[in-house]
């Protein structure tokens, strides 16, 4: 699209939003939500990310009156989402913290005997690829549920590093953890996902 035309149409959209035009909101939601969701998923699990995006749109109704157009609408919306996510992470800092001296999840640690061999080895081998596994909607839902149940920092580490492939040092900065503690967070979170998939594959239960 021609930039000038794009600017004009964005300007018209912003004016309509400022007038509280419902159909303008519907258009804007469809145009910008997928980018906003992608930003939220840098920080949060899928269901919390969706909640944040919903909350942000409600905030926009008031905030759009203060929008001065110094940045594009999209950048402005993404900044609102990022700030909300960061606040949410900060407010949850007093959550149950991960014991950084333990590399293993307690449930997995219990599966080894005193001579450090497997007492209860992996019960099956995940033969299918991740993409094939996710075609099962029930597994995908179960994954969401377990992601939501992870301690917030483990989840954020997993999302930032794994899902969005941020560099380790960026993740350390965002979460305010050392590089070695980030490794623990990632490993602990991956073990939870492993345990969940194993149970699901074996019993179909979440």
């Amino acid at each position, binding site marked *: 699209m021609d930039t000038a035309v794009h600017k004009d149409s964005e300007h018209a959209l912003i004016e309509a939003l400022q007038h*509280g035009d*419902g159909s303008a*909101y*519907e258009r804007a*939601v*469809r145009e910008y*939500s*997928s980018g906003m*969701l992608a930003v939220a*998923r840098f920080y949060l699990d*899928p269901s919390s990310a*969706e909640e944040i*995006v*919903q909350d942000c*749109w*409600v905030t926009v*109704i008031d905030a759009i009156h203060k929008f001065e157009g110094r940045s594009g609408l999209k950048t402005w919306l993404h900044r609102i989402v990022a700030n909300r996510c960061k606040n949410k992470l900060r407010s949850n800092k007093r959550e149950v913290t991960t014991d950084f001296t333990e*590399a*293993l999840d307690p449930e*997995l*640690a219990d599966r*080894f005997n005193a*001579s*450090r*061999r*497997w007492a209860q*080895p*992996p019960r*099956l*081998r*995940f033969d*299918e*690829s*991740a*993409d094939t*596994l*996710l075609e099962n909607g029930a597994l*995908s839902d179960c*994954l969401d549920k377990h992601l939501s149940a992870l301690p917030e920092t483990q989840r954020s580490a*997993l*999302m930032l590093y*794994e*899902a*969005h*492939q941020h560099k380790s040092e960026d993740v350390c900065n965002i979460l305010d953890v050392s590089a070695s503690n980030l*490794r623990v967070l*990632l*490993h602990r979170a*991956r*073990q939870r*996902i*492993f345990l969940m*998939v*194993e149970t699901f594959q074996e019993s179909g239960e979440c």
Partner: protein
Amino acid sequence: MLMCKDLAEIASDYIDGELATPQNLAIKMHLMMCRHCRSFIGNLRVSTDLMHAHSSSAPDEALMRKIDQRIAEALRARKKG
């Protein structure tokens, strides 16, 4: 000697290529001899891949409609207030 539990403790570092060469070799040797640990590493890799694949899905229409509804409610409340 590297035991199964030792391997499990550093499995993510192995998958991500974060280990120094001697440790890396010790793991490779262990994996040649231990099918349980081969399964574990394989499964942990799939679990890791699952996160990449899972997060790339686009927002669905149901979410859009939920947002429409919340905006409509907020706009109504604003008009009343």
